[in-house]
């Protein structure tokens, strides 16, 4: 089908984009890589949008290490994340995740900020940022705000981002020398949305585990994390299955997704500990 946008404007900088959004009478829609938004527009799931194209704002792009944290600009593309040496060193979970996202041609345009703001419950990056304990930086008419990932994802396609506010960057703690990152998911075909997926981070301070595609938003599996810290993998699997809230669809039943999440955790822990599952 064909999209039906209300209008289009190309923002020259963040302030310009904020002004455009403020003048869009509530119909403003930020366009970045467009790999989810334009698909939704083509299917007429979204119509009449006043598109604010932020994709040329150079300040919102790129990866740096600042004040002992990894900073990733919102417009950094999946394909760049897949090959960026700073990300591979300091947040290898994102490197792993990028390879699972859709296909090469989509990774060439899709952006991490777009993926987070879109908040698809089946998407990899939201769950990664949650597992890594990241911070999401936004800018609006009233200035800038930092939102912990734990508080950012609210419901299906719903975040703590208010109208007229732009996600500008994320920052992540730098991985410790002995830190281990693992992303495991099962999809029917390469590039499809996962039936269930997990992000596992093992730090000196303990385990962090997030799950995606098993509920209305990515979930930080606190009960399973507590069991993993206690060395109780079987207990962690049970806890995880109790914590998640999958729904069934044509791809997989809720019961199967729940089962799968536990299998993925067992396998991920076997890989991290080097002991057979």
């Amino acid at each position, binding site marked *: 089908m064909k*999209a039906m946008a209300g209008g289009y404007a*190309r923002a020259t900088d963040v302030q310009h984009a904020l002004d455009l959004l403020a003048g869009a009478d509530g119909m403003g829609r930020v366009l970045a890589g467009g790999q989810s938004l334009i698909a939704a527009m083509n299917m007429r799931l979204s119509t009449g949008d006043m*598109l604010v194209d932020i994709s040329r704002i150079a300040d919102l792009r790129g990866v740096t290490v600042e004040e002992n944290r990894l900073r990733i600009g919102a417009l950094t593309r999946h394909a760049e994340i897949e090959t960026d040496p700073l990300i591979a060193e300091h947040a290898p979970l994102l490197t792993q995740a990028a390879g699972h996202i859709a296909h*090469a041609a989509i990774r060439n345009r899709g952006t991490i900020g777009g993926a987070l703001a879109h908040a698809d419950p089946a998407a990899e990056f939201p769950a990664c940022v949650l597992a890594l304990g990241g911070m999401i930086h936004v800018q609006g008419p009233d200035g800038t705000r930092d939102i912990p990932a734990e508080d950012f994802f609210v419901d299906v396609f719903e975040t703590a981002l208010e109208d007229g506010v732009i996600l500008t960057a994320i920052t992540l703690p730098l991985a410790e020398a002995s830190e281990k990152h693992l992303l495991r998911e099962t999809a029917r075909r390469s*590039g499809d949305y996962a039936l269930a997926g997990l992000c596992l981070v093992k730090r000196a301070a303990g385990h962090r585990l997030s799950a995606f595609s098993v509920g209305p938003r990515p979930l930080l599996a606190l009960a399973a994390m507590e069991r993993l810290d206690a060395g109780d993998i079987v207990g962690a699997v049970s806890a995880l299955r109790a914590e998640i809230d999958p729904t069934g669809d044509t791809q997989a039943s809720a019961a199967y997704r729940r089962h799968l999440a536990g299998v993925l955790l067992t396998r991920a822990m076997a890989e991290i500990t080097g002991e057979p599952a």
Partner: protein
Amino acid sequence: MTEAFRDRIDIALTVNGEAVEARVPASRHMIDFLRLDLGLTGAHSGCEHGVCGACTIHVDGQAVRGCLMLAAQADGAEVWTLEGLTESGVIRDLQDAFVARNALQCGYCTPGMLASAMDLLEQGGIPDRATIREHLSGNYCRCTGYEAIIDAVEGVAKARAGKETA
């Protein structure tokens, strides 16, 4: 600031090496712009939501989905479609291999397959079959069963690396 929003946007870009200026509706995606406005029907319009890969084109040196990019976003871009790639001869060997291996039947997916495979081949080396398969996982073919397409891409990679013995 609402006056800054436009429902028609002026763009200037190069398509297949030629300068193009146009005024496009805000909703126009690249594939309709190329096919309907410029008459370049090489890239195909398939699912129009980024799943099938038939619309794959090259923008600023990278393979992208033509249906998931607005024409308004292409201002200043360098765009190549199958027409230009064919004329320039950069994928002559790949096209010949598709014919020789019978890597197409109806041909609907072929422009997208070529545009995607070209990306992989430009990375150099000889990708293994799993890598080729993974790279083409975003391009649907309902005729061939893919094997002949993988054969063609693998054959060209080997030939380009100077190791083709067949």
